[in-house]
């Protein structure tokens, strides 16, 4: 459980730190970078969204058991 929590949350924590830096220095936020990237590579963004959605649905919305 510790490993799963470490892997799952550490990237988010690092991104939160970068977001703090961007917000404090009044730069364009992470969301704007993500939006730009998704507009530039829409199919890749769609594929990643499907993968992420399937994973989240699998991990957090399993009804069996």
């Amino acid at each position, binding site marked *: *459980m*510790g*490993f*799963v*929590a*470490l*892997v*799952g*949350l*550490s*990237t*988010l*924590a690092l*991104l*939160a*730190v970068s*977001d*703090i830096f961007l*917000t*404090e*220095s*009044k*730069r*364009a*936020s*992470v*969301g*704007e*970078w*993500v*939006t*730009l*990237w998704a*507009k530039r590579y829409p199919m890749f963004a769609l594929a*990643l969204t499907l*993968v*992420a959605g399937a*994973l989240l649905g*699998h*991990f*957090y919305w*399993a009804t069996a*058991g």
Partner: protein
Amino acid sequence: MSAAVTPQQPAAVTRKEPKPERLIDRILNWQFPERARGVVTWISVVLLLVAFALLVWGMVSAVSYTLTHTGPPCTNPPQREASPPQWVMVGVCLLAFVLGHLTARWQSIDPKHSQRHKNLREVDHPETDPRKREALIIQTLLLVFLVEVIGLLIIEAVTLSQNVWPITYYVRCAYDAAGVQSMAAAASILFLVGRWFWLPDRGQNARTRS
């Protein structure tokens, strides 16, 4: 005493009145007061620090428990209902999601950076794009995300094939053993997701049709 009819009148009669703005458009186009953006920026920083602290707290708690105990902190299999109830968890997470979006939308951005950001949208040739460094960072984070996805899928496949707890059970176990702490961590994640993956104000960032 009737008024004289002029040739301009028919055209004036046929001219259409401008349509009243729809409520949804008024909401979407509402401009946040500029004076308050600085306050929202600091609120964003404080909430981001809180979210970071909650994530670190969750990681430290999970790792320290794993290192000091041999069995799981919950029943086997973990219960699906615990305290706080699931609807409370979902409600708090939704609030955090909306809060994340609103803070990201209303925080102030230095005009110098926003102008640079808008100008760079027009760059068509990657070789001349001065955002190489930022692009490298984003691609690195993307690579980390994909590697993590591969790792989680391998773990899930191996555990399912060997009749060991799948990742879903670890999530349920965290909720069962430490409901409030799990809710705080989940709300932190949703706050960050709301900041990053909810499209920003279309009036500022959407492409125009022209």
